[in-house]
């Protein structure tokens, strides 16, 4: 084989190497942002709930069980898409979900929960987004796994759906949570 023949294969080789890189790249998720908060206690807060403006809760309300904390808002279209799945999780799997209603209006949020059903055990009303800021929220929706000691174990950016749930469920079970027997 002449040198020129060999040289002509170089572009193909480069392309194959890049191809492998992309295959690998597809299985990685750039939106899976490594959160500096993972492994740290849930940030301190003191916020009223959606159902009752006089009911003020603190981070102590998070301890006691492995739960999901879901950041949502009525202005966020993906949250609406996600909502029915959260309802399903709460009902059929018995997942305890705490909502953080992020930069929203209480009246709109209550209406939403009436209209689309309420999967949350309670909702914190984070009107100013201050808890969101402490959590490092990137955008709604975001979902965190918080263990019984109120330590953040995992963060998912974007919609929770059946595909994402498989992963989250496994992580929650590893922390000692078990789904409701139906």
């Amino acid at each position: 084989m002449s040198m020129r023949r060999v040289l002509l294969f170089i572009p193909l080789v480069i392309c194959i190497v890049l191809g492998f890189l992309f295959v690998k790249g597809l299985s990685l998720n750039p939106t899976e942002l490594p959160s500096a908060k993972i492994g740290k206690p849930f940030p301190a807060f003191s916020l009223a709930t959606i159902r009752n403006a006089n009911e003020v809760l603190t981070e102590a309300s998070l301890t006691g069980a492995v739960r999901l904390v879901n950041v949502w808002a009525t202005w966020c279209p993906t949250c609406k898409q996600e909502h029915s799945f959260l309802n399903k999780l709460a009902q059929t799997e018995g997942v305890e979900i705490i909502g953080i209603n992020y930069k929203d209006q209480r009246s709109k949020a209550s209406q939403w929960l009436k209209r689309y059903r309420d999967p949350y055990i309670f909702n914190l009303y984070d009107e100013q987004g201050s808890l969101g800021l402490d959590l490092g929220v990137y955008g709604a929706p975001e979902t965190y796994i918080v263990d019984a000691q109120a330590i953040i174990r995992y963060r998912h950016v974007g919609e929770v759906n059946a595909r994402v749930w498989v992963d989250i469920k496994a992580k929650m079970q590893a922390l000692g949570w078990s789904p409701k027997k139906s």
Partner: protein
Amino acid sequence: MIPELGQYSLILAMIMAAFLAVIPMVGASKGSLFLMSFAKPLAKSLFLFMLISIFCLAYAFATDDFSVKYVAGNSNSALPVYYKLSAVWGGHEGSLLLWVFILSGWIFAVAIKSDGLPTDIMARVLAVLGMVGVGFISFTLITSSPFERLLVNTPLEGADLNPLLQDIGLIIHPPLLYMGYVGFSVAFAFAIAALLSGKLDVAWSRWTRPWTNLAWAFLTIGITLGSWWAYYELGWGGWWFWDPVENASFMPWLMGTALVHSLAVTEKRGLFKSWTLLLAIFTFSLSLLGTFLVRSGVLTSVHSFAADPERGLFILVLLAITVGGSLLLYAIKAYDVKSESNFELLSRETLILINNVVLVIICSMVLIGTLYPLIIDALGGGKMSVGPPYFNLLFVPFSLLLAFFMGIGILLRWKKSSPRKLLKQLLPSFFLAIAVGISAAYLFNQELAFKATLALVLAFWVVFSLILDAFSKVSNKADKLVGLSKLSPSYWAMQIAHLGVVVTMVGVALVATYSEERDIRMVPGDIVTLAEYSFEFQGAEKISGPNYSADMGTIEVLKNNQFFATMHPEKRFYPARGSMMTEADINAGLFADVFVALGEPLADGAWAVRLQYKPFMRWVWFGGVLMMFAGMLTVFDRRYKIRKSALPVTA
């Protein structure tokens, strides 16, 4: 009903593309004129069905048919009708449909303009384009149909078009950009046809060049518009971010620029043949790569679409087949494509080779920088990305080098040039460029900045070469002006395109060096001075638009203590999506832009305000416009009017 008709037409288009990919190709390899004669009717019907399909989607938008999922996700009944129509390409599914529609448009254009092509070449070119069509229409149909319905729970109101996209720039930017991306598929198809037939002669280059130049012109203006849009719409006054998506459009442009030059050598001198073929394959591959990067979610970017790994995998497979297949074909067949003449060291060929090498180096660096986060992540190194400093550090010196060689290359002749004559032309212009460049830089700003001064010197260097070359073209003519007016459109296109590069270079150098900006808190009555402008903030008031409400600030600007302008930047709130948008107010001028934007409201009627002075900003885009114009002009060269070939095709 109409959305189903759209889906149905898309399926028919898919079938046409599949026939187009197979029948003429078989015909060309068997030498069957009958089978090859199917190419044109199939190409035309492919276009017709795509036209119906995209029209149906536009109709669904115009009539607020929110039972169509894509319409519900990207439109709103309060949206003005022109945004409803441009919302057709406001999301992943619709923009993909636009991509395929434009592809079918190019296929149609090739089909009706190919009368002079030998039948077997025409059949192969259209068949290759048909294959690309099959790939992308099936991608649309299988993973991303815009016609999907929401028949249960039909929303009463749509989620609205992303406010960032509610803008004139975004109405025309994607179609033009896609015209460029997809247009390179024609050069690609010609390259594959040449490899398959083993024929690559002067005629081949003459057919390929106008298509390539046209695609390049569209891509140029597409990128220019994108930069202009980012400048005034993203609201912080940047005009190039080295964002993955910007890079995705810039890489095919760099490679396409190399291709345009290399094709010139192939046409005029029968040289660089296999190199030209490789560049044609690479240019289109990079266009596809851009599509992959934007839509697969392997990289994050300000304007990437909803990431979906399944779609990513599909495009990756498409990419593997197209690029892998064509490079394999290249590896096997390019050996037989041999160049037929030679050239001396001091010749235009050498300089174009340098141009190509530098462009390919720049392109590779942009590619590496863009893929770096992916490479590091794949190797287990965590999340990391390289920012503008990396790109600027490498891009600036290489583009200045390119400008230096441009000044020489323009004056050189094909095959060989006389060193003495060249020196006689270049030496005076070299010293003159240094003198004029430095004086111009000094006049502009007494503190000479090295890079900006060098850019100005090189700008004059190129301009002098352009003038010298034009005059040497008519040196033996009695009336110089008549001689100049008789030069071919291609020649003027060459002049204008290089002038465009110079204009952009001057703009980039000056705006990057001498821009001034302040982010400050202003209460009504505050005055801030920037360069020779002073800004008085006079407060902000509430206003409301068709589908938003806004705070509008009023800022009075004085230039050298004379009234200059009253500016009204806005901060808009779009309730349908709950999103905030910054609408900057820009006073554009030939030599400077004044830019004001509102940040956040602060206590006591104060606002965070961003003020910017950007000298020569318009030049960056004006150069792009010149380059586009030049690319379009070449198409009118009489040389490319294909005559009916006298030679019948022999099987």
